[in-house]
């Protein structure tokens, strides 16, 4: 949870930007409800952009399906570590996000083999709650007109740093470094050549480089 606090601060900043931007499209009650019920920064910002462009319901729903596809991959990777029953896993699933996935995987990697499941589940819950509260509080601040735009640059810089740190902790073998570099290059290539697929590129690249070869 302590290591999740910088991420929570950045999430709160973006939550405030979301709240300020969404208020005009959704109204205050639905803006707050969206952060409470959806809890997905990527999707919520995409919704604002789509509504701003005059999109109808179908594009909104299709965007939600496409953007959320990555959760299937992240969830499958976590499922391999989870040991609790389906009801508890159903609760934990709500807190699955890119950042919380990273914290949970890192905690599992740092734990002794018998404690991997418990450490992964506990960290997903605590970091998920921390970021969920930060996102909602940020949204409230934004809705009330207190957007933290001045901190956007600093908050934006935190995410690549956070993901680099999580990547370094997720590396268990030398081959993982090679796969990570290959995935980064693949993502950059997709972002430059097929910008419309930019948001899907990280998960697709992660899966593509994970499939071939042996570990070494």
């Amino acid at each position: 949870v302590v290591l999740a606090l910088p991420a929570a601060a950045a999430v709160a900043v973006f939550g405030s930007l979301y709240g300020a931007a969404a208020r005009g499209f959704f109204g205050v009650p639905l803006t707050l409800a969206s952060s409470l019920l959806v809890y997905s920064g990527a999707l919520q910002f995409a919704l604002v952009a789509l509504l701003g462009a005059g999109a109808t319901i179908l594009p909104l729903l299709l965007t939600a399906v496409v953007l959320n596809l990555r959760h299937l991959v992240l969830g499958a990777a976590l499922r391999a570590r989870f040991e609790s029953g389906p009801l508890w896993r159903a609760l934990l699933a709500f807190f699955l996000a890119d950042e919380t996935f990273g914290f949970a995987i890192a905690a599992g990697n740092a734990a002794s083999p018998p404690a991997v499941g418990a450490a992964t589940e506990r960290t997903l819950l605590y970091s998920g709650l921390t970021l969920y509260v930060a996102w909602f509080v940020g949204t409230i601040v934004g809705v009330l007109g207190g957007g933290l735009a001045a901190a956007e640059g600093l908050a934006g810089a935190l995410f690549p740093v956070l993901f680099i740190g999580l990547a370094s902790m997720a590396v268990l073998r030398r081959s993982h470094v090679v796969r990570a570099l290959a995935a980064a290059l693949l993502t950059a290539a997709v972002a430059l050549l097929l910008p419309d697929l930019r948001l899907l590129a990280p998960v697709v690249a992660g899966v593509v480089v994970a499939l071939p070869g042996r570990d070494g």
Partner: protein
Amino acid sequence: MSALVLATLALITYASRAAAVVLLPRPSARFETILSRIPAPIFASLATATLLSDASALAGGPTLWATAGALLATPARSLLACLIGGAAGYALGALLG
């Protein structure tokens, strides 16, 4: 956007989160090996994606300095070290202007 559309979006999002976590049986050893290879590449990819804006342009100076600082700290394999490296890089980048 209506409350019904919002509820549908929330349902789609939760279903995507829960599908694998709740419904998938514990994977086989072979599948588990492949899944164990996924996190590091995904994080490296997410780091790359966050450095590229909507127009696929590279992020601004301080962010790149922060990234470099975090990369220099990766041999420590510590999130805290990377955060400190990133903060130092960001400060340096902001100073150099």
